[in-house]
């Protein structure tokens, strides 16, 4: 089954950004790309098998993300000492984390019981008490300290 090398499906979802940034041209739903000629050094019939291709049909259209790939990798028959992507994750810290003021970054000796924000000076305290609630939530979310209210 012929599939043009430069054709792509609709609805490729947004990827996380990284060093390799690009902006795709607009997609066409037609079988042949109107403007771009197939590049001479490619096989025009190539289809990615990982994308499901023609066989898997509509269900398999999206690429697996890293989480899904790692989930499948875990199920492979690894030996105890084999290095793999998830076994080299750095371990959690055993040292108690130092507390820093959310506002200024200085060492924080105090926590505001009302908003749970950390502060180091009296001026910071009055600043904190005058903050709107969305900023307070923002600071807490920044260090993953938001609590889930039932």
């Amino acid at each position, binding site marked *: 089954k012929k599939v043009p*090398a*430069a054709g792509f499906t609709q609805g*490729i*979802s*947004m*990827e*996380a*950004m*990284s*060093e*390799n*940034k*690009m*902006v*795709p*041209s607009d997609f*066409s739903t037609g079988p042949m790309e109107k*403007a771009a000629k197939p590049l*001479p*050094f490619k*096989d025009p019939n190539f289809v*990615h*098998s*990982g*994308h*499901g*291709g*023609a*066989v898997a049909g509509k269900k*398999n259209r*999206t690429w*697996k*993300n*890293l989480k*899904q*790939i790692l989930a*499948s*990798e875990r*199920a*492979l028959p*690894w030996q105890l000492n084999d*290095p793999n*992507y998830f*076994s*080299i*994750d*750095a*371990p*959690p*810290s055993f040292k108690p984390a130092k507390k*820093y003021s959310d506002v200024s*970054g*200085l*060492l924080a000796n105090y926590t505001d019981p009302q908003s749970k924000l950390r502060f180091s000076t009296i001026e910071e305290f009055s600043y904190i008490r005058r903050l709107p*609630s*969305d900023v307070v939530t923002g*600071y807490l979310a*920044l*260090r*993953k300290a938001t609590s889930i209210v039932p």
Partner: protein
Amino acid sequence: GGAGPQVGNALGSLEPLRWMLRSPFDRNVPVNLELQELLLDYSFQHLGVSSQGCVDHPIVLTEAVCNPLYSRQMMSELLFECYGIPKVAYGIDSLFSFYHNKPKNLMSSGLIISSGYQCTHILPILEGRLDAKNCKRINLGGSQAAGYLQRLLQLKYPGHLAAITLSRMEEILHEHSYVAEDYVEELQKWRCPDYYENNVHKMQLPFSNKLLGSTLSSEEKQERRQQQLRRLQELNARRREEKLQLDQERLDRLLYVQELLEDGQMDQFHKALVELNMDSPEELQSYIQKLSSAVEQAKQKILQSEVTLEVDVVDSKPETPDLEQLEPSLEDVESINDFEPLFSEETPEVEKPVTTVQPVFNLAAYHQLFVGTERIRAPEIIFQPSLIGEEQAGIAETLQYILDRYSKDIQDLLVQNVFLTGGNMMYPGMKGRIEKELLEMRPFQSAFKVRLASNPVLDAWYGARDWALDHLDDDEVWITRKEYEEKGGEYLKEHCASNIYVPIRLPKQASRFSDTQAPGKGSGTSGGSAGEQA
């Protein structure tokens, strides 16, 4: 159809396009091979590849440390089946950088600390070979530092949310940030106002038309309105009382004059009438009546307004429609007369809006971001991931963890050659900080040596180039097409800059040659969910 995808540096300014940016990567692993294909198309075109039907060149490609087999399988499939390359070698970027920075033909041991955009690796090298089982990866890099810096500044300057872009954050990280040798000590320095003045960096944002008032949150606006209400009510009450007092005094005087009449002191009465500019006792009487009813009314009004004062403060709607427009000039309490025509007891007229700018408002200063302790806070996350609520250990603790897995002799060997590479290691003060951490964790008076790559960003490429030229004819390092077909896309040939190959076969993915799925224990095929990427 357009000009095709725009890639990398050809994009120019990123901010207007940020919502459209795509990448094949999820963290440091390529997962979307269609986007990878576009990148390779672009690269091969721009390199001037002209061979027909295939890319007739051996390829050296970097992959993640302990790259998932599935990812390598897809990459090899793309290279061999789509581009028809003759052979490929996969290597690790920081190992290529290490190769470039060490004396040639020297088998060395060392400890590589590599920090890039998405993650930071600590890689022990023993006799020229990666000791993969003792490697560790911290899932933080330049992108998390930029994101952290962005949130810090956006929370500090909520009025400039949109202007605090990732591009500007990267500029601050590249040009204005540094790593503190001793973080707590450095913070103490920042407490001092003089040090702050000398070291704060002020970023001037482009002018925007938004007025100060419109950037208040809705809560702040409500609070403002209520304050203004209260102020006006107090003002009104005060004026009523003053008027009442004046009227009362006048009434008293008139009553006294009337008493003169009642007492029969006609001469003084007539004299007083003339002073008052009145003609007859009847006129005096009517004045007295008017004035006393006015005084009565005023007293009633004052009583009423005291009762309703509490109620009005809760009501969020302004009493008069002109409240919004008067906002700027309300600060100027001295000119009470300005309020007279609007807040009298008669129906208020609609005045033209008063757009006075506060006299002490500095437009330039309003558009400045003061970057103080943020200069050291953002780069610090790889040392203290707890700053952003991450549980993983930082560089120093992970370094200690890895060293503890070796004998004392090997530890000494490794720390003699600590090598720093990757863009996220380029902060001023990074080398000094790593040295300080080593000093704290190593035995008293033991030796160690830390070096930075000559070009932490590009040495990976230079190293891959050196390595490729040195190994062009070495069949032991290249994966040929034949080997790909026999051993599968996940196959890897090891060399001095490569991962370790764990010989696990993946079943071939559901392919265009339908139904050739090997049933297997570790199935790598998908029941691909329609869940979101990345």
